[in-house]
C-alpha cells in the first residue's frame, strides 16, 4: 500500500500545498479547454443545445472512478484513506437544488467562475463577488440553518454501502449509464440543432 502518499506520511504539509497549486493548474487548464470559462457554453447544457457539461463531467467521473477502483484492487491505494464527505442527504438535496437554480441565474459555478474571470469575463468577476457576499450572508445567518445543515445525517456513506451492492457492480453500472448518457446527449444535441435550423427557415 503506497497511496494516498500524503496520508501515509510520504511528504509534509508544505509539499501538499505545492501539489494543491499544481493540481489546480491542471484543473483550471482542462476547465478552460472544455469551454467552461464561458457562461453561455455552460448554460447551453440546460437549454439542451450543447451537453458538454454532462459529457465532460461524466468522462471525468468515470476516469477517476476507474482509476481509483483499479489502484485499490491492485493493492496500491487504500481507498478508506481518501476523504469522503459525510452524507447529510436532506442538506445535500436542498443545497444541490439551490446550486442548480444559481447555476442558471449566475451562469457559473464557483470553480468555473474563476476560470471565466482569469480569461477576461467580467460577469465571472461579478459572480465571484456575489459568491463572496453570499458566503458572508450565510455566515451571518448560519444559526438559522442549524437544523437544515444536520438534516439527513448518515455519516460517510458510499452508494455500494447504501444499496448493499458490491462496489464493482456500481462501478460497472456507472460506466454503462455514462456511455448510454453520452449517446443520448449527442442524440438530443442533433435533434435540437435540427429544430433550431427548421425554426430559422420557417
Amino acid at each position, binding site marked *: 500500500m503506497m497511496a494516498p502518499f500524503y496520508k501515509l506520511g510520504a511528504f509534509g504539509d508544505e509539499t501538499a500545498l505545492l501539489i494543491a497549486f499544481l*493540481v489546480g493548474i491542471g484543473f483550471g487548464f482542462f*476547465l*478552460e479547454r472544455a469551454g467552461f470559462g464561458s457562461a453561455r457554453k455552460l448554460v447551453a447544457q440546460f437549454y439542451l443545445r450543447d451537453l458538454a457539461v454532462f459529457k465532460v463531467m461524466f468522462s471525468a467521473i468515470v476516469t477517476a472512478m476507474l482509476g481509483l477502483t483499479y489502484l485499490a484492487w491492485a493493492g496500491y491505494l487504500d481507498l478508506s484513506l481518501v476523504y469522503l464527505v459525510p452524507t447529510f442527504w436532506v*442538506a445535500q438535496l436542498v443545497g444541490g437544488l439551490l446550486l442548480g437554480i*444559481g447555476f442558471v441565474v*449566475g451562469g457559473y*459555478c464557483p470553480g468555473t467562475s474563476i476560470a471565466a474571470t482569469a480569461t477576461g*469575463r467580467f460577469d465571472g468577476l461579478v459572480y465571484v463577488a456575489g459568491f463572496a457576499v453570499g458566503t458572508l450572508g450565510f455566515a451571518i445567518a448560519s444559526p438559522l440553518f442549524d437544523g437544515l445543515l444536520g438534516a439527513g445525517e*448518515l455519516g460517510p456513506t458510499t452508494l455500494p454501502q447504501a444499496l448493499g451492492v458490491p462496489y464493482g457492480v456500481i462501478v460497472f453500472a456507472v460506466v454503462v449509464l455514462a456511455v448510454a448518457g453520452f449517446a443520448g446527449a449527442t442524440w438530443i444535441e442533433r435533434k435540437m440543432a435540427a429544430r433550431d435550423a427548421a425554426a430559422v427557415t420557417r
Partner: protein
Amino acid sequence: MERIVVTRDVMEDPAGPPPPGPRPYTNPYLAGVGLGLVLLAAFVLVGRGLGASGAFNSLVAWLTSLVAPDYAKDNPFLGNYLNGDDHPLKAWLVFELVGVAIGALVSGLLARRVVRTIERGPRISIAGRLALAFLGGALMAFGAAIARGCTSGQALTGGAMLNLGSWVFMLALFAGAYATAWFLRKEWR
C-alpha cells in the same frame, strides 16, 4: 453522380499562421479524461479531491477576521476556517484555486480565448446580466454551504468516489437547473 470535392484555398499557405480568433474547444470527452486524471492525481497524491467553494469560505473567513476578529472566530460557519495557528489562507483549496486561475489563463492564452467580455444572451442588458451574475453567485454560496461543497467538491469528487450524498446532490443540481432554465430564457437565448 459527380462528386463535389471541396479543397482548401490554394492561395493559403498550409504552413502559415492559423486564422486569427479563438480556437475551437477541446473535444468534451478528451477534456473530461484530462480532468479525471487530474482528479485521480489529487486522490493518489494527497488523499482528497478537488474543490472550489471551500477556498471562498477561507477567503471570506480571513477578510471577516480582519474587520471583526472575535465575531469571525465565534461564528459557527466562519470559525471552521479559522482553527489552528496557521494563516487562514494557508489552506489546500486556496492554493488549488490560485492554480485554477493560472491554468485557465494559460489554456485561454494558448487558444486565443482571453477576451474582455460579458457573457450574455442577445436579449438582456449588460446591467441585467451583471445583476443576475451577482445574484446567482450569492444563491450558490448558500447552496454550497448547505450542501458542504459545490460542483467540484461534491459532484465531481464525490461522484467519482461514489459518495451517496454527492449523487443526491448531483441529481438535485441538474433538477434545479432544468426547472429554472425556462424562466430565465431571456438571459441566455
